[in-house]
């Protein structure tokens, strides 16, 4: 019975817990270099950090909307209908005289307004408990989120002397080596929240901008607003699998080099990867 209960918790949905009310919301533009292009060409997503007194949550706005819509009654059907409408309007679906589909061409402009997932990441931080819980997914047919816990104070920042302005806030810089990358962060002492995008935190001010050395990964705040909004669990019915952080990164590296693997398509040669993962200490 205990094993069944444990499996049930592990297999469907995250463990429900009591969440705090966020008083601050920060929107970030997250940009990362496409791994298979040898110059730096960014893919970007819009991320949200909700900050409560002793808790915060970081996630993708696009993924949140998509998962919420899909989890609501009729949501999946609505998404499918929107996809078909967009393809039809752009002439992407070719049928024969009997209406049988002969080919489907995806037109990027036509699909622009169809909901789809962004980054598959959620980070819940609990500074009072010196703990953060991280959820990550990889692209593929299975809706699995991999999770692990880490201490919040693992990052050791070296304060710098430079200042700049981000969103009108005077920011000071700090540098840290974290999980294989060197990060430069600009934090605003005027916003005394020891938090920031993704897993970055621990500075005496909110991190408004952070970039890994070489520019392959960067976060830039685009808005900081007061709010009164309950932090929530991740929407949707994901399968949750506990694992080791480095094991996940190895899996992610494999999927990045062989994107079709999850769909049963194995390429003869793995793609050449020019830009490594956001954490590189898994090797």
């Amino acid at each position, binding site marked *: 019975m205990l094993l069944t209960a444990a499996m049930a918790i592990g297999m469907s949905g995250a463990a429900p817990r009591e969440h705090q009310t966020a*008083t601050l919301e920060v929107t970030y533009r997250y940009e990362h270099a496409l791994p298979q292009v040898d110059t730096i060409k960014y893919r970007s997503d819009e991320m949200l950090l909700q900050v409560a007194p002793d808790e915060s949550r970081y996630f993708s706005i696009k993924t949140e909307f998509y998962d919420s819509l899909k989890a609501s009654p009729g949501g999946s059907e609505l998404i499918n209908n929107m996809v078909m409408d967009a393809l039809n309007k752009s002439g992407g679906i070719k049928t024969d005289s009997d209406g049988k589909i002969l080919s489907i061409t995806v037109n990027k402009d036509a699909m622009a307004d169809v909901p789809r997932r962004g980054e598959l990441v959620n980070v819940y931080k609990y500074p009072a408990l010196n703990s953060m819980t991280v959820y990550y997914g990889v692209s593929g047919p299975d809706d699995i989120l991999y999770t692990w816990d880490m201490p919040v104070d693992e990052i050791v920042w070296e304060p710098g002397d430079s*200042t700049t302005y981000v*969103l009108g806030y005077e920011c000071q810089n700090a540098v840290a080596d974290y999980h294989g990358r060197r990060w430069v962060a600009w934090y605003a002492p005027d916003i005394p929240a020891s938090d920031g995008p993704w897993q970055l935190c621990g500075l005496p001010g909110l991190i408004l901008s952070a970039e890994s050395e070489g520019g392959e990964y960067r976060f830039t705040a685009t808005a*900081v607003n007061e709010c009164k909004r309950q932090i929530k669990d991740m929407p949707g019915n994901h399968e949750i699998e506990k694992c080791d952080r480095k094991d996940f990164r190895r899996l992610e590296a494999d999927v990045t080099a062989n994107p079709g693997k999850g769909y049963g398509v194995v390429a003869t040669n793995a793609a050449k990867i020019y830009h490594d993962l956001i954490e590189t200490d898994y090797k």
Partner: protein
Amino acid sequence: MLMRAGLLTAVLLAIAGMSAPAQTSLTGLVVDTDGGAAVAGASARLVDAAGKIKRFANTKADGVFRLPVPAGSDSMTVQVAKMGYAVAEFPVSGLNLSDTLRVTLHTQAIQLREVGVRASRIRENGDTVTYSVGQFARKQDTSIGDVMNRMPGIEVDDGGKVKYQGADINKFYVEGTDLAGGKYGTITKGLAADNVKSVEVLENYQPMQVLRGLSFSDRAAINLRLKKKSRAKVMLSGSAGGGWGDNTGGLYGGDIFMMTVKGGVQNITKAELNNRGRSLGGMSGFYGSEGGERLDAYTSIGAIGGSGNSRFGRSASVSTSTLWKNSRGGEWRVQADYAYNHLWADRSNTTTYYLENGNRVILENRHGESRGHTGSVSANYELNEKRYYLANTLTANLSWSDTHLDITGTLPNSQRLTTPDHEIVNRLKLIRRFGERHIVTFNSVNQWLLRPEHLYVAVDGGESHADDRRYGSDVRQQAFFTDERASYGFIIGRAVVTAEAGVSGFMRHLDTDIWGNPGIDVPDASNDMGTDYFRLYARPKVEINLRRISFNFSVPVSYYHYWFGGALANRNEVFVSPRLTGQWKPDSRHTVNFSASANRSPAGLHNILCHDVLGDYRTFNAGADDYYSSRGQSVSAGWNWRNPRRGWFADAGLSQSWNQSRQGMAQTVVGDYVINSYMAQPSSSESTQLYFNISNSIDCIGATVRLRASAARGSGTMFSQGEKVDRSYTDFSLVPSLDMRFLPWLNGDYSFSFSRNMMHLSGMSRTHIDAYVHDFSLTATPGRWRFTVSGSHSRDQVEPHRYVNRLDLNGRVAFRFNKRVEFILNASNLLDKREYVLRSFNGLTSSESVSYLRGRELIFSIRISR
């Protein structure tokens, strides 16, 4: 024994004290004022007098922090802060670091700035300054260049060329792509402002990825961010119109602009035509091209004169630029431009030559007319990667120009000058980085130049025509230039050491011939000579990039071997030209640039002539009879400061240069004729230039204010009638301007310009010319209508204590039919002014000219955009 133990203990304690660490920790307990519960996640900071955080620590679940406090921190402050609480502060000098500091935090509502709600007009993030186009644009703006000219720190000239903080930009991107190459004026003057969301300035921009982090750049790049709707479509706009002018008759004009930036193929195309005397095309690249020679003309009858509304004629131009990106990240760009201009202007000139034995005055009434075709085609491939850079550009520039000048007055004559000017050039640049420390660069330039000139002069000898004369000049120059060089650079710590070496060759042939009877004896009227050189050179360079300061020191050394085809003896020359430049950035707001150089420059081969060449109907150029190099030294410093958050931009610069030559420029007047030559006389000159610009964007009233000031002075020697003449000059100018939105439906701009040019020649009294100009415009935009009144008032000095005033007034009424269509009625020169007077100094002469203007004109046009 006890005493010894006590003494030993005391000594041990003293040693322990001496070796104790200089840093201690402050332990603190942070509690909430309500109930005294421990506060987790609060940050304790050690802050210096400038407000910078030097150390920090966070409280855990128990509310405890341990903050390192180094020795010498007495002037600092300990702050404890958390969201939702007021900040608690304690001066370190008042703390006992061995005690636990109990901090009680009091709740306080969060106070954030409204940055998420309303973005300011200008934002900065590190080295990027972003201007919001929507907040600077006005309804009367037709192109993005009009809006950019209103942004503080940015200037856009009439040709569309952009400067940031007083310096030319080094790249112009649209959505990260360099679509126009160096000819981005097509975009600044053609792209409608409502397609653009923001203008980003990328300061200290290094366009070649392979050099980033190694070679500092003091220039900025511009990147236009388009609105989402514009990225996805073909941007199209155009206008067509017709009208009538009082002294010009029927008028017409139109333009079309098209740009697409989506997908792997991107294109800009612009075409325009008019018959309002506005010359078109001839757009050269705004970025300086590395390497190459040029052939200067020997013959010049002067431009036809006039500008703006003192020119008449018709013009047409078309230019297109297409860019393809391949899967490797490389870019192909093909550009083609063509322009046709048929222009004419009328002017009266009074030119005074200042001579010791009495001034010589020449009166002329000029009618100038020119027809010209200019065409340019270029193909460019560029691959810009982190470890590899390749760029090859093949360009052909072809132009034909035919100018007529009819002169009545002191020396009535008619001149016709035909000047084709052709160039084909290929430039290759290859840079490769090996490992982390080695860079190899290869550059190659190959250039072919052709410049023939044909001058025909007809002088009217009076009623009997007995003294009619026909004469002229034929000149042909053809040259080939090649330059191949390679460099190897290696990185040692923060320094990059580069050794560059190369060879170049220049082969030029010159044929000149004066035919007919020019009116004075010309000893030998032809040249048939070659002037070639072979050059071997090396340029060692060291570039050091420290945290806040960068230096660049180079010592180019060149060896020349010249062949003069018998005109002069062949010779060898060695030149050394050390140069030091640097940049210092004390903080994120200030930048200081400085440079110093000394050089010995080769003589211009253009001036080496065996015999005279006819310059125009009464001017001969005798050239130099020997090889004269010159020496120069210069120092300069520039400063710029910006505070984009408050909308402030300022820059200033000072430069001083000296030049010494073994030759002096001489001017001899024989009757009505002038002979320019170079004499073997040491001569020297020096000049100082100073400028200061400051601008501010005042968000709350939607205004931009600017002040530009400049001063220049100099002195030198010239030769007139065989006698040495010392010449000095001083020029000032001051230009304040204001652009303001008075009400949501009413905006205007005003600028005032004052300039003074002073000249002094030895043995003569000092003379000066003042000019004052006021420019203004006022636009009201009630509903779909737009009413604009604009004009200028100028006051030019023509004699001491005598000024000429001129007022120009123009009007415009526009009606926006819908989002895409606008009707415009334009009226220019409402006061129907027909003349404009201008006075200027040039060397040992001054001239007063009266230009004849286009009269009142009315044009109706339709503008359509998509």
